[in-house]
């Protein structure tokens, strides 16, 4: 009958939407992970900046590049750490915006799925009566 194929279509649509929601949730989880990593790096870099600020002009700073400890200019080290902090902050902001967007999509997907489920239920109830 017409109703059963409509029902089947709705159920298939529901499955698709559920898959979409799943993917959105995975994306949100990944976003959280990357955010965590960046937040940790930001904290570490800020600690380093604090230490560098405490130094005199003539203190020696070295950077570990692979297996080599290279002498660095204090001003250069300061500039590098600051640049890194700016970069990480910008990335975190970008991630925040993406996260908000993903969460909005997730909520609207949930609403769509709920409505679909209600339609399916009422169709099934209608079928049962007939």
């Amino acid at each position, binding site marked *: 009958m017409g109703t059963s194929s409509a029902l089947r279509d709705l159920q298939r649509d529901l499955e698709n939407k559920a898959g979409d929601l799943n993917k959105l949730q995975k994306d949100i989880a990944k976003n959280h992970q990357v955010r965590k990593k960046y937040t940790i790096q930001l904290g570490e870099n800020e*600690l380093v900046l604090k230490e560098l600020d405490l130094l005199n002009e003539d203190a*020696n700073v070295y950077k570990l590049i692979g297996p080599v400890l290279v002498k660095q200019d204090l001003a250069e080290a300061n500039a590098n750490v600051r640049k890194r902090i700016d970069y990480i902050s910008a990335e975190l902001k970008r991630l925040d915006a993406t996260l908000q967007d993903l969460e909005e999509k997730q909520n609207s997907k949930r609403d769509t799925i709920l409505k679909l489920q209600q339609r399916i239920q009422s169709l099934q109830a209608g079928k049962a009566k007939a």
Partner: protein
Amino acid sequence: MMAAAAKGGVAMELEKMSVEQVKAIKEQTDLEVNLLQDSLNNIRSATSRLESASSALHDLSLRPQGHPMLVPLTASLYVPGTLDDSDKVLVDVGTGYFIEKTMAEGKDYCERKINLLKSNFDQLIEVASKKKSIADEAGAILQAKLKQLSPTS
């Protein structure tokens, strides 16, 4: 007083919810408590590493220049050498940066880091114990509700 009132408030909120919801809240809070415990353990081990670094520094400062020592080339290969200048130390400050400091500055650095970690630890302990008490509340209320549902058991 306020804490008790807040806790009473939480208990009342939990009472109003269904068994499913209380169960979900308890599970989530348990997870959070575990995460916090892990963080606390990390802080504890970092603090003990810093303390052993600090005591190694102190030991180093007692050694005179020219003192014979064994220099590690790999984890299992040491070569004999002499202690050059024990007043200068290289401190690993993170993200691959090392700073040359005097012995006194190095000790000061260790002290500062240990204090920072201790204050973080204290803050975390407060948060963790609050979460734990919420988890315990939820557990108790869950038990009570389950008993209500099956009085003939």
